[in-house]
C-alpha cells in the first residue's frame, strides 16, 4: 500500500515537471517575469481532490524547487513559490467549504497564483506601479484557471474510481 502511494506520488511529480517544461516552451509573456499559464496547477488541483492536502502540497513545492533548478533560476523559484503557496492556500481553504466545484477552485488558484507573483514582483522592483497589471493578471488567471478547471474536473471524474480502488483517496464520499 505504502509503496504504491510513493509510486503514485512520483508519477504525479514527474507529470507536474513535464507540464512545467511544456510551459517553459510556450512563449507566453505578460511583461512580468514568472507569470505563466499555470499548467501545473492542473496537477495540484487533481491531487487536492484525489490524493489529499499534504500530498498535493508536497508535490506542488517539490515541483517548484525542481523546475526552478531545471528550467529557471533563483528568481523564478521565488516567484513560483510565492504564487504556488498563495494559490495552494486559497484553493485548500475554498475546497474545505465544500460549496464550490473544481472549476471555481481552479479559477481561484489561477488568480491567486498571479496575485502572489505580483506581490513578490512589487517587492523586488520596489514600485507599486506594477499593481496596474492587477486587472490583466486577474483576468488571465481566471481564464487559465477556468480551462484547467474544466480539464481537472474531467480528470477527477475519470480517475476517481482508480484512486478509490487503490485506497489512495483520503475522502470517500
Amino acid at each position, binding site marked *: 500500500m505504502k509503496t504504491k502511494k510513493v509510486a503514485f506520488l512520483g508519477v504525479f511529480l514527474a507529470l507536474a515537471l513535464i507540464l512545467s517544461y511544456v510551459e517553459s516552451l510556450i512563449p507566453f509573456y505578460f511583461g512580468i517575469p514568472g507569470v505563466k499559464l499555470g499548467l501545473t496547477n492542473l496537477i495540484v488541483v487533481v491531487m487536492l481532490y484525489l490524493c489529499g492536502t499534504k500530498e498535493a502540497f508536497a508535490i506542488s513545492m517539490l515541483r517548484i524547487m525542481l523546475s526552478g533548478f531545471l528550467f529557471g533560476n533563483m528568481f523564478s523559484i521565488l516567484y513560483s513559490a510565492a504564487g504556488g503557496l498563495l494559490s495552494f492556500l486559497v484553493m485548500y481553504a475554498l475546497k474545505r467549504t465544500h460549496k464550490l466545484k473544481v*472549476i471555481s477552485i481552479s479559477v481561484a488558484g489561477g*488568480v491567486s497564483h498571479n496575485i502572489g507573483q505580483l506581490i513578490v514582483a512589487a517587492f523586488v522592483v520596489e514600485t507599486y506601479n506594477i499593481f496596474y497589471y*492587477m*486587472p490583466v493578471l486577474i483576468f488571465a488567471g*481566471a481564464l487559465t484557471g477556468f480551462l484547467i478547471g*474544466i480539464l481537472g*474536473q474531467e480528470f477527477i471524474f475519470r480517475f476517481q474510481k482508480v484512486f478509490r480502488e487503490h485506497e489512495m483517496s483520503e475522502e470517500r464520499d
Partner: protein
Amino acid sequence: MSKKRFGKNDILFIGGILGIALLFMLLVFFLQNKEGACVEVTVDGKVYGTYDLNENQEIPITIDGEVTNVLTIKDGKAKMTDADCPDHLCMHQKAISKEKETIVCLPNKVVAEVTGSKEKQEFDSIAR
C-alpha cells in the same frame, strides 16, 4: 461526489472574481488620471518646452517669429488663452491638469500635454 460540473455557487464565484477585476480596472483608470506635474508643449511634433504646472505663468508660443498661441498656467491648470487661428477651438477646450490630458490646436499643430515628470513626480506624491 456528484457528477455535476457547475453549480450556482460557481457562477456567482467566478462572476465575483471577474467583477473584482473590473473594479480594479476602473481603479487603475482613475489612478492613472492623477494630477500631473508639468505641461509639455509640442509644435509640429517637436518639443517646444516643458513648464511647471505649480507655477503661474503665461507662455507665448512663437512659430516663425509670430506668437500664435498663448498657454496660461494658473492654479495648477493649463489653458489656452489666445490663438490666432480662425476657429479658436483650442481656447474653448477645458483647462487641463491631469496626466495625459491634452489641448490641441490643430491649425497651428500645437499640442499641450500634461506629464508627470518622472522621479520628481514620485517624490511629490510621497511628500504630499
